[in-house]
């Protein structure tokens, strides 16, 4: 009797388990899309100098926080009821950690929005637009981290670490440039400080996205890739 003839279904026999896993995943993707939206709104608030967008971001953060609590609760419930093993267990744990990272990203977006409000109250500076590529880069990293999670894309997740280094570099250059400028244009110092802070937020967002990537890699392949920079130099 050949085992190849046995059909291997992809869903769990216990349908409540299957639904619980799907619900957890859907909530995580929902939280991801809210976070991305908040990040995008913060960008608009910053570069279009629009206070309304900033306020929206600050208000919408509550939604993201609620989802984080819910995902946490759902995850614990699944562990309790179904004792997931192997890939199921890795997926649940990664999803719960993902939600923590998303919540932090959303918090950075709030930070950006608050800083943007301060910037809006002061005269504009051209240097602000040097932030655009950095913002774009960070936003794309977040989108890709989410996509890697959603479609279980190992390569995409792996690539995030390198990109994070890039982002760090961009942040460093930007901060250096502005620091130089500070000595010439003293009255712009508060503005430049705000911009540097925003850049730092973006750099942190990149870190969070990288963490998400590492968690996704673990979920897919059980590889441990965190804190291994000392190995790759």
């Amino acid at each position: 009797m050949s085992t190849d003839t046995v059909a291997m279904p992809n869903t769990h026999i216990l349908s409540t388990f299957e639904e619980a896993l799907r619900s957890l995943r859907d909530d995580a993707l929902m939280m991801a899309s809210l976070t991305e939206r908040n990040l995008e709104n913060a960008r608009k608030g910053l570069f279009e100098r629009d206070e309304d967008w900033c306020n929206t971001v600050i208000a919408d953060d509550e939604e993201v926080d609620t989802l984080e609590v819910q995902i946490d609760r759902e995850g614990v419930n699944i562990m309790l009821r179904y004792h997931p093993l192997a890939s199921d267990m890795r997926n649940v744990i990664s999803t719960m950690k993902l939600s923590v990272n998303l919540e932090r990203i959303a918090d950075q977006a709030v930070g950006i929005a608050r800083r943007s409000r301060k910037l809006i109250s002061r005269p504009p500076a051209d240097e602000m637009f040097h932030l655009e590529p950095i913002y774009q880069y960070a936003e794309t990293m977040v989108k890709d981290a989410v996509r890697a999670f959603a479609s279980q894309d190992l390569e995409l997740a792996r690539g995030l670490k390198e990109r994070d280094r890039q982002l760090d570099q961009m942040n460093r250059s930007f901060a250096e440039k502005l620091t130089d400028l500070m000595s010439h244009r003293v009255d712009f110092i508060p503005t430049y400080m705000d911009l540097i802070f925003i850049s730092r937020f973006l750099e942190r967002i990149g870190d969070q996205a990288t963490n998400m990537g590492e968690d996704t890699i673990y979920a897919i392949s059980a590889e441990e890739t965190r804190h291994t920079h000392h190995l790759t130099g």
Partner: protein
Amino acid sequence: MIKSMDPQPPPTASAPGTNVTSELAHPRADFLKVTDFNFYYGKKQALYQINMEIPQRQVTAFIGPSGCGKSTLLRNFNRMNELIDGVRHEGDILLNGRSIYDKKMEVIALRRSIGMVFQKSNPFPKSIYENIVYSLRIAGISSKNILDETVERSLRGAALWDEVKDRLQDSALGLSGGQMQRLCIARAIANRPEILLMDEPCSALDPIATAKVEDLIHDLKSQFTIVIVTHNMQQATRCSDRTAFFYLGKLIEYDDTQKIFTNPGEKQTEDYITGRFG
């Protein structure tokens, strides 16, 4: 009985708790070794080309859906399957380097050096004392000192001594389910076997009795090699060091328990333990 083939010298009153042959040696990784093993019930093949090495003084769990052959393989280790008519095997099984099918090895000597605990506890309808010393009596040992010492040692080893020490002459059938199973474990270890085979030992027990037996398994593994067949995957994760997954008579995957349950190599294993089929 040919003494040179007997892996276990008869227990002496002077050396309680020592497993003489293997105590001094470094634990073997291939203490129980199965090579190219095929097994047939008449015309029907039940096991296909099984190859595995079971390490000494660790707990190895056999898991798999019903009918996958895990119990069949277990019962071959002490040749209990030979009680059924028309069975036949190919390949070999070696215990501590010696084939269990060696012509010079008597089956009863083999069985005395392997302890077995069954799914439904089956103490004899005799007193608790007589249950434990049964294996000694059939070996011709009747010295009261040795028997008494064995009873106490075995019951202590099975974490049952305190509960029954005042009623050793009572019928074993008056014990609770969990106690009966622990009595069966005590009976199985009375003769200080090399290996302890357990066929779903907790499936008929309530959670507390199960926990006590699992705790016992943990204590016993410092002295005995244990192979346990279980349907309960949580039990395998709690109790075992190595896990083997069987399906339709074949050994699909065999590895450290941690690896099998966090990241199994075979899709079939993954599908079974995550409840996608089975």
